[in-house]
């Protein structure tokens, strides 16, 4: 029999796998919370198996109704949102969504939200016992909730406290803390979370912004202000990821305006162990898959065997 030329041992591709707090990710590309629903919404547009992980929409113990509309507005290379933590609640997620997600070979990270410390602890405790969840991402940084809510990202001591408490409430799950960019020095918050036992940091959430309809003279969002995301904020996000990487030893996950393979590479070079694709999912539902494939292709064409050769490889001018 003639040997099939395609029958050789396959060329070993570059190694894209990364580890975050003991959990293996097949590649460093995930989707960002709130921009990918509960994951399954995207299954018909892309291969969910192609990405390292899915961070689902922020969950609270009880469902949260969210803010009245209008909730979104597009700005130059970005968008504002004031969804207001609308979610179906952790119990319904575990029952209705998680089983479907478990059919895919990718990690599931649950972003958790709450108005009070006790609410965070409740959802953390609840999720701790559920198989199929690979990490919790503690969202202490969402700007779009009413004045009543606690703000654990205004003072590093509060960040420390909530991190430590949630850490205790869900001992089984790796804990990522997602930081706000709306601070004077993100490193203080990064260090506080690290000291309190965070396993990784997600950097950044949205910048607080506003837009006004000059015709009606009303804010474009009924909540008045909203979170700015998308390519517009990428330079700020990249700077903060770089700063955070200098300040802590735990892994940093880069987020903010990532929509191309090059964008992802910038964050990895700055030191991020992994990245999350956010707003880009909205205008290109398969963006995360394309970026994951793009990283593999980049490594191949640049003869990079392992993605770790890229991570933290920022050089300086001579």
């Amino acid at each position, binding site marked *: 029999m003639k040997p099939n030329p395609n029958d050789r041992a396959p060329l070993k591709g570059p190694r894209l796998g990364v580890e975050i707090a003991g959990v293996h990710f097949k590649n460093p590309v995930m989707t960002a919370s709130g921009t990918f629903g509960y994951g399954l919404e995207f299954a018909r547009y892309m291969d969910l198996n192609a990405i390292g992980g899915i961070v689902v929409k922020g969950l609270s113990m009880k469902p949260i109704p969210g803010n009245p509309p209008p909730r979104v507005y*597009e700005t130059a290379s970005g968008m504002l949102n004031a969804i207001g933590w609308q979610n179906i609640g952790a119990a319904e997620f575990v029952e209705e969504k998680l089983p479907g997600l478990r059919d895919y070979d990718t990690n599931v990270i649950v972003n958790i939200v709450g108005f009070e410390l006790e609410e965070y602890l409740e959802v953390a405790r609840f999720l701790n016992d559920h198989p199929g969840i690979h990490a919790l991402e503690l969202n202490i940084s969402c700007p779009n909730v009413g004045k009543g809510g606690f703000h654990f990202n205004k003072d590093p001591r509060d960040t420390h406290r909530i991190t430590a408490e949630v850490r205790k409430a869900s001992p089984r799950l790796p804990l990522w803390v997602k930081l706000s960019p709306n601070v004077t020095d993100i490193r203080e918050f990064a260090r506080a979370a690290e000291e309190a036992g965070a396993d990784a940091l997600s950097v950044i959430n949205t910048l607080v912004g506003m837009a006004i309809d000059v015709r009606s003279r009303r804010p474009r969002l009924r909540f008045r202000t909203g979170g700015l995301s998308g390519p517009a904020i990428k330079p700020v996000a990249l700077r903060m990821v770089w700063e955070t990487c200098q300040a802590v030893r735990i892994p940093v996950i880069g987020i903010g305006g990532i929509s191309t393979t090059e964008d992802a590479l910038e964050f990895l070079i700055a030191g991020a162990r992994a990245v999350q694709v956010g707003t880009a999912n909205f205008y290109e539902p398969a963006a995360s898959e394309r970026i994951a494939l793009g990283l593999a292709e980049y490594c191949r064409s640049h003869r990079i065997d392992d993605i770790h050769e890229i991570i933290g490889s920022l050089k300086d001018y001579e």
Partner: protein
Amino acid sequence: MLDKKVKIKAVRDLGAGNHLIVIASPEQARLVRPGQFVMLKCVENTGENPLLRRPFTIFNIHRNARSGKPAGVELLVKEVGVGTRRLVSARPGQTLDCLGPQGHGFQLPSDLPSRVTTACLVAGGVGIAPLLLLAESLLALRVKPILFYGGGTVADLVLREPFERLGIDIITSTEDGSHGERGLVTEPLAQFLRIHPRKDIRLYACGPWGMMRAVHELAVGHDLQCEVSLEARMGCGLGACLGCVVASPAAEGRPYLRVCQDGPVMNSRLVRWDIEPV
């Protein structure tokens, strides 16, 4: 449903900022149900502004001239801002990203005729967009559609011919009196409902919020069912961002419905008309 790179086949200027855009996409065209929409990237490159895709109702199925098979979709696009401006100035042959058909269209169960014999289709301006496919489906079900079509001025009353070709009654009105009755489209509708105090009428409305609200109130007043095709700013158009909601009186801790997924067509009684979503 599908995310495709599609080609613009033609852009026809209908005046007053309105354009009929024909898009080649057989796979998507085959799946369309009346009231659904597409999310269209208004510029060629993904990274270009506007970033977010824009929702447009599928006005008609574009069919292959010879085989009659679905070859694409026709959209009625009114130029109102940066995205629509770019879209209506696109050249035939240009490629765009197109997601669809999306959303929840009109309720058209086969037993509809047992409850409904007359359908009042109420359009304001480009609100005409979802009503052609609806009218065709109603006719196929042997429900009689009547079109109430209003606009600011005669130039807003675009694309009447396809309805005329279906042979249905069209009652037009314009605010400046340049065509049909002078005034709001809800006036001839109200008059019709007064004259025909029947329960086998159903209302279908698409247009500005205030107009749909008025039609809803007429429906409630006459104890009729009413379906509305809603507009909202959309982030994703596929149910993930929760950006496109309307408030709903249906409680159960979930007072918001997604226009892109639970709509765009909804029973008007599911909508809280005191909270405009745009």
